């Protein structure tokens, strides 16, 4: 029942497209080679390729290395560097206050998996429309290398010694929290990150992207499953993905998809994700139970070291968002006039009479 063409607001017409540098941010102050920088450049690339209108993007983050990065992309978009673990609540308020906005939240494994676990699970439950990126490296960087809750059991680092506790799988947590879009990727796989980002931006709900993003300072060594080397040799893509924006037509006969091992998922705004199954598996990302099973299997394989599955794990394009669920106006709340916001003098007088 959308009365405003949101895509027309959020994406610029061909004639007004911006240059790539218009989507850049400030100079990154993260370490050279940090996975977060590569994710930031994919966000810039995606915004440029889709012709996003930066006025309708908001960037939000919590605290940590990951949460610094919104300053390093989309400099023409409003940003909000919030509190540790509390980005989801701020995003909820902002997105609800203005339904025209497209929110990109950047968090880390500490910010989401520990201090922010409560808000993380509640934003997925509410299905607030936003892209929620977790730059997951298994360690706390800014405080110099403590293990996070996603670190592998038995892994060792110079600073923190040996990790004796099992990791939390944030994709499983997201699924348990009723998330409607759950994907995992690897900062060293830019093409996949890009496709998932595009799909996530079109998803009408909370899109969780758990991106393994190596920390070159504290956790990029051979024994770490959050390292570049490990990711490169062990990533296990579920599908070969193509994102087709809503205005483009798919030039393939849809009937043949199943026969060719392909699946098409249509998102809320009319865009589509074409998933070409790879010979390694045949995961159906619209099957929530299968998604849970997939993650549990991956976790229990390889002697306790999880199998590094990447790709689209789960999507439900149809569940209503928070704003839809509460039946609110599509008009940004700040655009409402005083006449709309302040009931009449007569209504107050009537109310007062009723209390006499």
């Amino acid at each position, binding site marked *: 029942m959308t009365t405003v063409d949101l895509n027309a607001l959020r994406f610029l017409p061909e004639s007004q497209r911006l240059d790539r540098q218009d989507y850049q941010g*400030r100079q990154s102050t993260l370490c050279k080679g940090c996975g977060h920088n590569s994710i930031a450049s994919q966000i810039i690339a995606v915004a440029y390729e889709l012709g996003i*209108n*930066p*006025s*309708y993007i*908001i960037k*939000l983050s919590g605290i940590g290395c990951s949460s610094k990065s*919104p*300053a390093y992309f989309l*400099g*023409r*978009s*409003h*940003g*909000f*560097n*919030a*509190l540790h673990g*509390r980005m*989801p*609540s*701020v*995003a*909820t*308020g*902002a997105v*609800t*206050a*203005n339904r*025209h*906005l497209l929110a990109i939240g950047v968090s880390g494994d500490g910010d989401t998996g520990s201090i922010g676990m*409560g*808000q993380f699970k*509640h934003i997925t439950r*509410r299905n607030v429309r936003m892209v929620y990126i977790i730059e997951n490296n298994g360690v706390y960087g800014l405080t110099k290398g403590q293990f996070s809750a996603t670190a592998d059991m038995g892994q060792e680092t110079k600073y923190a010694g040996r990790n004796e506790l099992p990791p939390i799988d944030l994709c499983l947590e997201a699924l348990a929290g009723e998330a409607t879009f759950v994907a995992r990727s690897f900062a060293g796989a830019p093409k996949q990150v890009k496709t998932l980002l595009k799909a996530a931006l079109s998803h009408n709900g909370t899109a969780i992207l758990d991106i393994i993003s190596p920390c070159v300072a504290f956790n990029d060594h051979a024994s770490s499953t959050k390292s570049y080397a490990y990711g490169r040799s062990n990533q296990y893509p579920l599908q070969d993905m193509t994102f087709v924006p809503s205005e483009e037509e798919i030039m393939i006969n849809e009937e043949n998809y199943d026969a060719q091992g392909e699946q098409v998922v249509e998102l809320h705004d009319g865009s589509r994700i074409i998933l070409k199954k790879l010979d390694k598996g045949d995961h159906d990302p619209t099957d929530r139970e299968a998604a849970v099973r997939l993650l549990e299997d991956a976790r229990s394989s390889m002697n306790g070291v999880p199998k590094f599955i990447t790709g689209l794990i789960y999507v439900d394009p149809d569940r209503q968002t*928070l*704003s839809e669920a*509460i*039946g*609110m*106006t*599509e*008009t*940004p*709340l*700040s655009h*409402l006039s*005083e006449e*709309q*916001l*302040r*009931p009449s*003098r007569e*209504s*107050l*007088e009537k*109310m*007062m009479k009723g*209390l*006499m």
Partner: protein
Amino acid sequence: MGDSVQTAERAAPSPATATRINDFQMIVATINGTGSQTSNTAILRALFKMGIPVNGKNIFPSNIQGLPTWFTIRVSKDGYTARRETNEILVAMNPNTAVEDAQQLPSGGICLYDEVFVTDQRYRGFGFEESRDDISYHRLPIDALLKEVDVPKALQDRVRNMVYVGALAHLIGITLESLEEALIHHFKGKEKPVALNMNAIKAAHAWAQENLQTASPYRVEAMNETEGMILIDGNSAGALGAVYGGMTFLAWYPITPSTSLADAATAYANHLRVDENGRKNFAIVQAEDELAAIGMVLGAGWAGARAFTCTSGPGISLMSEFAGMAYFAEIPSVIWDVQRMGPSTGLPTRTSQGDLMSAYLLGHGDTHHVVLMPNDPKEAFEFGWRAFDLADELQTLVFVLSDLDLGMNQWMSDPFDYPDEPMKRGKVLSAEDLEERNGKWYRFVDEDGDGVGYRTLPGTEHWNAAYFARGTGHNKYAVYSERADDWVENLERLRRKFDTARTLVPKPIVHGKKGNPIGIIAYGTSDTAVLEARDYLAEAEIDTCYLRLRALPIEETTRAFIEEHERIYVVENNYDGQLANILRMELPEYATRFITMAHADGWPLTANWITETLKQHEAAQKN
């Protein structure tokens, strides 16, 4: 008196010398969860309808069912609405507290009670009437009367309490017409429940006429003192104020005593703020905790909503970090803190003014917040809308500090004034404004010298509209900075902004003639007790001036008042004397003038306590 129950009453041997009209307090003792709220508010509103000044206070436990609860109703021909320490009439419906409740009555007091206390086997040896021989007992055959009025079994518990309403009406002179009007109000005109409850009241009234012959020394008579006034609780008033103030976003987490504020805001907004297509022009979200509630408020405020949350002391503790964030990121936002005792369990349902200091300074790193302190429903309504204007104008967090006594009890009030000025949205630059400036603007540059910068909202279609919001670590261009001079400049501007706030917040109300050495300063719900106490003090030839502070930070009126008085009694419902300490801190040159008169026991302050304590201080002063 033995075990036999022959007569329904036993008069006090020496009845009170004179009948007291419209000047006493009654207390109804019941068990939580038995529906006495309907009967008690019916009595309250009936008295109000009779034109008699009233105030009702519900003293309830943190419990759903089973623990004792009390409801006091004060009638005062002089218009005093503060709590009194003495209750002259007791309606004892709770066998667990009845003996102790009866002990609290003054000699000559009257007690209505459920006859099961003396007839039921369970209370054998209870000796209820033996516990006092200087008060009058009126025994109500509640079960028998209920049978008589033919109440369906399922509803018996609900109308049970109407029996004491009917008997009390006879004893003290509440008219049946006013009770019926009160029930019509309560049930919003629904005939069935009104008739059902009225039948029980009438039956009890008729029975009392027949059986209760002893004249009550305490009686009510119709007056004309409530004409044109309303009866409402402060939480409803504040919620209504928010709705008329253009509230567009509320995130909240359930906590007594603020929950009913969120409930009322939801009900009023659903009634008043839905467009012709059935779409709400507001959003209300029940958050997972208080941290999330205030986080959502900040996100919404940043995006241009008129956003607020309501909570109590434990909630503001959890909101502390975001309160600091709101201050330093300069985001319009409002927190209603309906104060209670705390933390944790124990006295969460008792009133207090114990959050003033923490609300004023909440956050870390030199934070100061605007705090509004309403004293009654009318002001709760006004501050309900005004808080949004102040938050938008000052681009900061504004507290409204209410308390359980105001929030959850029924108060007489003048009808609310419609907001007399257009909404103030503060310094927000639109795309057109930016165009006019050729895109030149900086978030925290103090263009106007009032410490308040210009802001833009996300979704503003201009190439240079965007800025980055953060807590500390930004310069005046809203660019990340760790430079010492940038931060000092920022703190200085924020101080300038706080000085601007002094000129915008509601001014205090001053009572009394100049040239008097004694000043009283109080705020919020302590007002009623102070006003009453000043009359008693004047009778004792202690003249006082009184300044009711309505907001922090303090401004010139307050400074001048303090300058004019030698001794300033700061009266408040907490233990530490939090306002006194804030005044000492803010006005060190007058620090020795302040005398802390603070008291915290979970109950609203009384005029008697204020009068006696101040007298003692003054006597000590003379010695």
